[in-house]
C-alpha cells in the first residue's frame, strides 16, 4: 500500500526526474511530506514564479522535462506566467499543483482556485485527478505530451485527499497515444523534397531562417550539414541563436525587430525563404503584409498550428526536423543548384555586415563584448527581458545551440535570475552568466536567497540604466519622450542588497568602457568575476538614454529599420 504522494514521486522517478522546483503550502503538504527518501531532490525557491522559471531554465538547457510544484490557490496562480512562457517558447514543463480536497472542490474553499480552468488555454494538456487509481496514467500521459511534438507545458492538479489516500500500486505505466487517421497516412515518404529542389533551382536569392525547432528536434548536426551544402544567406531567431556557428561565412546573425541590418535586408529581398522550426511571430516578420514580399516560403514545422499564422506559406513541410532535413538533403545531393555567389556577395558583404559603427562605440555594447569575450568556452548566457536582452542577443557569439536562454515569446521580465538557478543546477560545472536589467531583476530579486542557500556560482549582471529601458526607448521614439512611469531612478543600491544576501557584489561604471581596448585592470576584474567559484553580482551603470539599434518599429517592414535615433515627429 502506498500513499498517492508516494505514487506521484515514484512516477516522477520513472520519468527520469531527479530535480523539482517548488514552494510548499497546505494542499500539497502530503507530497512534501513524502519527498525524503524518494530520490527526487526538491529545490525551494522563494516564490512560485521563481520555481516555474527555474524549472524552465533546467528544461531549456537540458531538453528534459522541467518540473515545478506549488500548492492550491495562490501557489498555483503564481505559476501561470511561467506556464504561458513555456507554451510560447515550446518548453517541456510539468506543473504539479495541490488542490483542496475533493469534497470541497467548487465550494470556493480556502485557497481553492480552478487552476485547471485558469490554465486551460495556456497548457498543452492538463488534468484534475479524480481518483487515486488514475495517478499513474495521468503522470505518464502528462509527461508524454510535455515532451512530444512541439514540447509544452502540462498541469496536473491533485486534490490533497488523493495525495493522502493509500492503495496498492503496481508500478508506473507507459502512455501510448492513439494515432490519428491523418498521421497514419503521413508515413508514406517525403514527396516534398523534389518540390523544394525545384524551387531552389528556380530561385536566385534564397535564404534560410533557423528557429528554436532546430535545437528542440536535436537535429543541429543535420541542419549544419544542410546549411553548408546550401551555402545561402542564413539567419536565426532569438531562440535559434547558437544553432548556426557564427563564424559560418553565410551566417548573418539575428533577424527581426532588433536583428542585424544584413539579416533583415536579405529577408526583405529574398525570393525563396526556407524556414526551419520558427513560428514567424510579429517580432520576426514586422508588418506581415510586407514580410518577405518577393519570396515563396517553405516552412519546416512540427506543429500544424504554427503554419500560415502570419502569412500563408507556399510549401508546408510537416514533421520533426530530424526526419525532414535528412530527407531534403538526400534529394538535394542528387541535383545541382544554381550558383548563388553573386547573391551571397551582396547579402553577406561587408557593407551590411555589422552594426552601425556608432552603435558599436556604445559603452554597454562594449561592456557586453568584453564580458562575452572573457567567458570560458563552456558557458550559458541567460538574458532577462528588455534592452539588455536585445544587446546581449546581438552581441552573443557561440556555437552552442542551448547556450543563449531567454523568455522570447512571452517576454516575461523577472525570468533570468530564477532560470539561471535551474541552468546552474543542471550544469554545475558550466559558467552561467545571468544578464538582467534593473527592472526585471527586481521582479524576482528574492531568488538571491536561493542562489545563496545553494551556493550556486551564478554570475549575475545588472545593466542599470535606472529606467524600464525598452519601454522608455519606445516612449522616446514614438511617444514624444513622454516617459510615463518608466523612471526607476529611486532604485535601491543593488550592491548593498546583494551584500545583505551575503553575495559578493561590485559596481562598474560605463566610463570604464570608454577607452578601447579597455584597461587591463577592468579586464582583470571581469576575469576574476567570471572565474569566481562563488555567486557574484556586477552592477553596470549604463547611460539612462542608451538605445538598442537597429530597430524595426512595430508595424513597419523589416526594410524600414532605424539605424540610429530619429527625432520624434
Amino acid at each position: 500500500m502506498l500513499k498517492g504522494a508516494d505514487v506521484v514521486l515514484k512516477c516522477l522517478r520513472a520519468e527520469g526526474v531527479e530535480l523539482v522546483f517548488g514552494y510548499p503550502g497546505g494542499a500539497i503538504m502530503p507530497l512534501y511530506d513524502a519527498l525524503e527518501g524518494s530520490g527526487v531532490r526538491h529545490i525551494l525557491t522563494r516564490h512560485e514564479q521563481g520555481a516555474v522559471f527555474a524549472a524552465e531554465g533546467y528544461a531549456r538547457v537540458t531538453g528534459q522535462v522541467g518540473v515545478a510544484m506549488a500548492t492550491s490557490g495562490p501557489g498555483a496562480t503564481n505559476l501561470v506566467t511561467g506556464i504561458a512562457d513555456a507554451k510560447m517558447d515550446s518548453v517541456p514543463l510539468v506543473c504539479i499543483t495541490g488542490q483542496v480536497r475533493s469534497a470541497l472542490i467548487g465550494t470556493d474553499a480556502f485557497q481553492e482556485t480552478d487552476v485547471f480552468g485558469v490554465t486551460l488555454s495556456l497548457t498543452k494538456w492538463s488534468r484534475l485527478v479524480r481518483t487515486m487509481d488514475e495517478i499513474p496514467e495521468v503522470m505518464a500521459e502528462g509527461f508524454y505530451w510535455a515532451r512530444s511534438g512541439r514540447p509544452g507545458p502540462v498541469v496536473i492538479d491533485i486534490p490533497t485527499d488523493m495525495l493522502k489516500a493509500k492503495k496498492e500500486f503496481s508500478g508506473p505505466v507507459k502512455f501510448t497515444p492513439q494515432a490519428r487517421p491523418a498521421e497514419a497516412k503521413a508515413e508514406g515518404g517525403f514527396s516534398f523534397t523534389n518540390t523544394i529542389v525545384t524551387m531552389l533551382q528556380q530561385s536566385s536569392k534564397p535564404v534560410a531562417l533557423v528557429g528554436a525547432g532546430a535545437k528542440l528536434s536535436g537535429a543541429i548536426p543535420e541542419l549544419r550539414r544542410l546549411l553548408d551544402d546550401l551555402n545561402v544567406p542564413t539567419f536565426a531567431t532569438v531562440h535559434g541563436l547558437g544553432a548556426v556557428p557564427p563564424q559560418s561565412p553565410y551566417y548573418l546573425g539575428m533577424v527581426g525587430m532588433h536583428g542585424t541590418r544584413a539579416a533583415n535586408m536579405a529577408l526583405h529581398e529574398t525570393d525563396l525563404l526556407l524556414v526551419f522550426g520558427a513560428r514567424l511571430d510579429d517580432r520576426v516578420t514586422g508588418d506581415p503584409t510586407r514580410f518577405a514580399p518577393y519570396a515563396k516560403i517553405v516552412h519546416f514545422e512540427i506543429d500544424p498550428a504554427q503554419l500560415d499564422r502570419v502569412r500563408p506559406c507556399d510549401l508546408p513541410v510537416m514533421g520533426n526536423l530530424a526526419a525532414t532535413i535528412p530527407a531534403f538533403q538526400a534529394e538535394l545531393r542528387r541535383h545541382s543548384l544554381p550558383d548563388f555567389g553573386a547573391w551571397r556577395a551582396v547579402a553577406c558583404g561587408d557593407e551590411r555586415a555589422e552594426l552601425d559603427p556608432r552603435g558599436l562605440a556604445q559603452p554597454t555594447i562594449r561592456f557586453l563584448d568584453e564580458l562575452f569575450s572573457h567567458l570560458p568556452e563552456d558557458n550559458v548566457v541567460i538574458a532577462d527581458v528588455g534592452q539588455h536582452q536585445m544587446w546581449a542577443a546581438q552581441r552573443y557569439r557561440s556555437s552552442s545551440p542551448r547556450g543563449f536562454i531567454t523568455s522570447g515569446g512571452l517576454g516575461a521580465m523577472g525570468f533570468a535570475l530564477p532560470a539561471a538557478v535551474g541552468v546552474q543546477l543542471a550544469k554545475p560545472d558550466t559558467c552561467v552568466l545571468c544578464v538582467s536589467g534593473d527592472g526585471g531583476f527586481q521582479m524576482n530579486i528574492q531568488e538571491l536567497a536561493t542562489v545563496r542557500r545553494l551556493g550556486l556560482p551564478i554570475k549575475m549582471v545588472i545593466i542599470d540604466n535606472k529606467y524600464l529601458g525598452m519601454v522608455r526607448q519606445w516612449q522616446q521614439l514614438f511617444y514624444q519622450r513622454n516617459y510615463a512611469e518608466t523612471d526607476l531612478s529611486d532604485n535601491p543600491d543593488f550592491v548593498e542588497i546583494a551584500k545583505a544576501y551575503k553575495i559578493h557584489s561590485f559596481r562598474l561604471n560605463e566610463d570604464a568602457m570608454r577607452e578601447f581596448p579597455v584597461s587591463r585592470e577592468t579586464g582583470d576584474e571581469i576575469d576574476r568575476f567570471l572565474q569566481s567559484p562563488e555567486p557574484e553580482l556586477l552592477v553596470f551603470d549604463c547611460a539612462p538614454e542608451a538605445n538598442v539599434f537597429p530597430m524595426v518599429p512595430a508595424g513597419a517592414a523589416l526594410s524600414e529599420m532605424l539605424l540610429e535615433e530619429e527625432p520624434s515627429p
Partner: protein
Amino acid sequence: MQAFTICYRNTQGTLMRILNAASRRALDLSAVRAEPAAHDHEVTLVLDVNQKQVGQLYREWLSIADVITASSGAIRTAAWTAPHPPSGVGIEESRAAARA
C-alpha cells in the same frame, strides 16, 4: 456562416480547448452541439469566419491532444433551426421542475 465538426475523445477539457480556439479570436459561437458519436464525441460549431481564420482554426484544433479529426460543411438547417431548449420544454416548465 460555416459549420465545423470536430471529432474528439471526450477527455477533461478537450471540448473547452476546442471552443477556446474560437473564443480567443473573439468569434461568436452562434451554435454549439456536442454529442457522442460512435466510440468518440463530436462537436459542431457554427461560426462566422474568414478564410484565414478557417485555416488557423483547423490547425489549432488538430494540435489539441485529443482531437481526432476536424471538417467543415454546410449548415444542416433542420438541425440548427430547432429551438433550444426543445420546444416541448418551456422555460416556465423547466423552472417549475427545478423548484420541485
